[in-house]
Structures are given as structure tokens and as C-alpha cells.
């Protein structure tokens, strides 16, 4: 009979625990539907060369695929960090998402080019196949070309060391350091 008295307390503690946990969950973070699948096939122009490229061009791997656009403010924020990742030899492929290609080329010329290549996606169709819902987004392709991680929002050192570093152990990246002009 005495235990009954504590039922409201138990209920309160349970509810408080539930709500407290809710505080630390980001409701805007969506699970990526493409995890564990290969990069969706595409055939699009490359931003700088204008040549048509396909998903087969996304080598070497493991690599990052970064969704960006000149209209995206946060992309400008993360740009310097992408440059430093590229300097460390991590391959980064850009998906220039629903952007003006002329402005995009100017951006790379002025701010530096961290990308091995850039997929031009004016219509957003590659983005749609990938499940992109905004920019910036950054995906990890593992050595076999499977999508293994997605990050929505600005990529910085804290996020990278927490969520990305297991695919890119320090010093293990063997790819050549790309020239400042980008390209392969």
C-alpha cells in the first residue's frame, strides 16, 4: 500500500527523463534513406571542364561528396575547412546544387577549390536521387562507393573528428594532394 504513494513520483521521474532526453535530440536531423547504398547513377556535366561525367568518376575513395551552392551562406562558412581537408589529401567531390555555373566558377576562383571535380546539378535531379533537402550536406563514400554517412549543415573540425574520422584515419590518406586549381 505504501508503494502506491510513490507512483506519481515514478511517473514524474519517467516523464522528466523522457523530456530531458528530448532536449538533446535535433528534430530537424533526418535519417538518410540512402545509407548503405551505392551513389545513385548520374550523367552530368563537370563544372570546370564541361565534360560529361558519371558516378564512375567518383574515384579515388573513400571520399566526401559535398553539396554546395553559391546561394548557400553556410557553404561559405564551411569552405575554408573543406580547403584544409583537401590539403590533407582527402578526396572531396562537389555537387553544385541548383546553382548558376558562372557564379560557381567565380566562387572557386576567388575562394579556392577544394574539389577533385564538381557535378553540375542545375535542376537538382542528382540531389533528389541522393535525398538532399538543403545545402550544405556532406556524404561519405566508402572505398567500395557506398554511402555510409550523411551530415547536414556546416562541416567543421568538431563534426569531422566525431563523425567522419573513422573513414579517414589521420595519415592514412594516400591520395595525392591536389593542386590549388583543383581537377584530377
Amino acid at each position, binding site marked *: 500500500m505504501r508503494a502506491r504513494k510513490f507512483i506519481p513520483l515514478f511517473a514524474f521521474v519517467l516523464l522528466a527523463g523522457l523530456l530531458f532526453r528530448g532536449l538533446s535530440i535535433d*528534430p*530537424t536531423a*533526418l*535519417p538518410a*534513406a*540512402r545509407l548503405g547504398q551505392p551513389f545513385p547513377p548520374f550523367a552530368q556535366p563537370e563544372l570546370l571542364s564541361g565534360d560529361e561525367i558519371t558516378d564512375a568518376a567518383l574515384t579515388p575513395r573513400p571520399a566526401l561528396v559535398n553539396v554546395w551552392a553559391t546561394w548557400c551562406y553556410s557553404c561559405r562558412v564551411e569552405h575554408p575547412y573543406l580547403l584544409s581537408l583537401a590539403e590533407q589529401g582527402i578526396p572531396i567531390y562537389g555537387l553544385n546544387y541548383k546553382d548558376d555555373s558562372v557564379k560557381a566558377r567565380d566562387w572557386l576562383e576567388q575562394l579556392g577549390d577544394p574539389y577533385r571535380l564538381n557535378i553540375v546539378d542545375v535542376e*537538382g535531379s542528382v540531389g*533528389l536521387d541522393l*535525398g538532399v533537402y538543403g545545402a550544405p550536406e556532406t556524404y561519405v563514400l566508402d572505398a567500395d562507393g557506398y554511402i555510409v554517412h550523411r551530415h547536414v549543415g556546416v562541416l567543421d573540425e568538431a563534426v569531422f573528428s566525431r563523425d567522419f574520422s573513422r573513414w579517414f584515419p589521420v595519415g592514412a590518406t594516400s591520395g595525392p594532394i591536389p593542386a590549388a586549381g583543383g581537377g584530377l
Partner: protein
Amino acid sequence: MKKVQKILMLSALWCLLLASLGAQAVIETYAFSSPDLEARYHLLSQELRCPKCQNQNIADSNAPIARDLRVVLFEQLEAGATDDEILAFMVARYGEFVRYRPGIDRQTLLLWAAPALLLSLGAAGLIGHFRQRRVRRPEVLTDAERDQVEQLLREPRA
């Protein structure tokens, strides 16, 4: 003077009308080949959730991604895709999240079961509550207590 008032009144009404336009859902024109497709478009666009502005369906949202998804929906309907095919296409890209009525799987089971679960929890609580009250009501006196009561009643009043 009357005329000025009338003009003021009319312009106020006009402003109200304009203001109410903004509150409506996104207005776009698609040339559907049949009214049947249009009806399915409206149903599906209300069923699909915008990934960017998460508490709106794609019919109501102005987000670029919602617009893109409406275009895809229109194109697929015109191309003769079934509702299931369209939903599967969306789910493959944006997960069960894009459906306001997700399919039942391990992740959504709790979501679907929650109403029945909570209802039965509440019902169990109520039943327990009333049963307890019924048990408590007929309070039977012990023989000693009965004697005491009778003695008290028998005592002459002061």
C-alpha cells in the same frame, strides 16, 4: 465627407482581401491531362511531408525542395505511375519520414501502436480506480466495534 469615408472603407476591405491571399496554400498551375490525376495530385501532395519544413506537407510548403517534389509528383502522375510507385520513389530518397502515414516496420511500430497502447493504459487505470472504490465502500464492522457503537447509542444523552 461621405465619399471619403466610402473610399476609406473600400480600401480597407481591399487590404483585408489581399492579406487573406497570403494565408492560402501555395498556388501553382499544372495542366493535368485528366481531373482524376489532379485529384490524386492533391491527395498525394497532402500526404507527403516536406523534408525541410517538417510540419508542413509539400502542398502547403514554399520551400524549394517541396516545389521540386511537387514537380516530380506531377511528372510521375502524368507518366502513369501508381500511388504506390510514387510513394516508393519518395521513400527511397527521403525515408519513411516523408509520409504522414508511414508503413509499419520496426521503427514505426511504436508510433502506430501508441494510440491503442495509451488508450488501454488509460482504460486499465480507470477500471482499477473504480474497482478500488467499490471494494472500499461496504465497510463491515467487527463484532467489538458493533458492541461499542451499540453502547454509545444506548448511553443516555447528557
